[in-house]
């Protein structure tokens, strides 16, 4: 479903990787490994379409994602280093806004259920600026629960999370794969799900 062909990426004048080719099918997870600065985040951003590759292409359902970015993005959810949430809004408002931007507005019940699932049931009407780092990450994870997207691109989803939340991520990813989804994940910790490995910078 997702195939990456002969991808090359440069940061400044250094070539991070080149001739990178892989394929991820429905129900599979690709775990990207690599030292700091090996280009894991760059790879994920290129796959999403946030950055351009020097060479190569990314295909989704057999078509180049740059041809029709709109329909690719509708099936994609990306969680980056920054959670993408506003400090001035509550967790529920943030999730509601996110869902509207993603083109699938959620009902208040769905939002409450998603926040309950990530362990923020009691804090859903609290302004995000009162949240700790880990709670913000949990709020960002609520998108994964709430939004039906085929492809998950997760950049360090386990960072800043406690043990229970790390297990929650594993469960979410496992359930997503079970349902036929795809996942592209970078992490320095083991994910706790069966995955293919890709090593950058070797």
């Amino acid at each position: 479903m997702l195939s990456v062909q002969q991808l090359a990426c440069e940061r400044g004048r250094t070539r991070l990787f080149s001739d990178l080719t892989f394929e991820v099918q429905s129900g599979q997870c690709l775990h990207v490994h690599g030292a700091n600065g090996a280009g894991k985040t760059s790879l994920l951003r290129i796959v999403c379409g946030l950055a351009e590759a020097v060479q190569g292409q990314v295909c989704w359902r057999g078509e180049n994602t740059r041809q029709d970015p709109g329909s690719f993005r509708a099936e994609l959810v990306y969680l980056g280093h920054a959670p993408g949430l506003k400090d001035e809004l509550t967790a529920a408002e943030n999730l509601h806004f996110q869902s509207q931007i993603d083109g699938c507005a959620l009902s208040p019940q769905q939002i409450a259920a998603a926040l309950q699932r990530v362990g923020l049931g009691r804090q859903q009407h609290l302004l995000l600026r009162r949240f700790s780092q880990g709670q913000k990450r949990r709020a960002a994870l609520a998108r994964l629960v709430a939004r039906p997207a085929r492809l998950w691109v997760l950049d360090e989803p386990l960072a800043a999370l406690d043990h229970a939340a790390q297990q929650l991520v594993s469960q979410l990813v496992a359930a997503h794969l079970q349902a036929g989804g795809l996942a592209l994940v970078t992490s320095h910790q083991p994910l706790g799900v069966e995955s293919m490995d890709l090593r950058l910078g070797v």
Partner: protein
Amino acid sequence: MSAHLRACAALLLRDLRSAARRPGDVATPLFFFVVVSALFPLAIGPELGTLRLIGPGIVWVGALLSSILAMHRLFAADLADGSLEQLALSPTPLGLLVAAKVLAHWLLTGAPLVLVAPLIAVQFDLSLNSTLVLVLALLLGTPVLSLIGAVGAALTLGLRGAELLLCLLVLPLYIPVLVFGAGAVQAQLGGLGAQAHVSVLLAILTVAAFLCPWAGSAALRIALE
């Protein structure tokens, strides 16, 4: 299409709501505008003829400067907390979302200026007709300031010294709005009628509303890389 419009409305609402929870951000440019335009009559003295002559120009320069005051924050906050990436990955075209953000910026910085302008006009002894022309010109001109400023904010996003660079980049582009905006009131005062100036302002607004969101979105995609 309606999904796109709903996404834009959601973004507009989000920006207005976060601004309502940080009222200082809205009050600062407005307060700046009032103070700057109040300084001139105090400095120049109560010579009504002179005040009437310089009034429109000073109101417009004040509007320009206060519009640029909050401009650099338009995308910087979204870049810092990662929501700009999420906007760029929305199925809704980024140009439409930029337009929604510009509209929010105008409602928060431009519209209050239009509302407070009649009060400022009193300080410069403008007649009722001239005040109406001033308000109309500001109503058409301040959205252009927000639109052009958004392109500048997107181009300078993430750069060091972005605020100063933004001023240098954008202020020269504001000149046509300044000339025709202040000129409209002068023409009204001179008995020529403001219609020609207002038409030009409307034309500038139309072109800017059409081009600036797309230019801004292209610049944002470059800034995100």
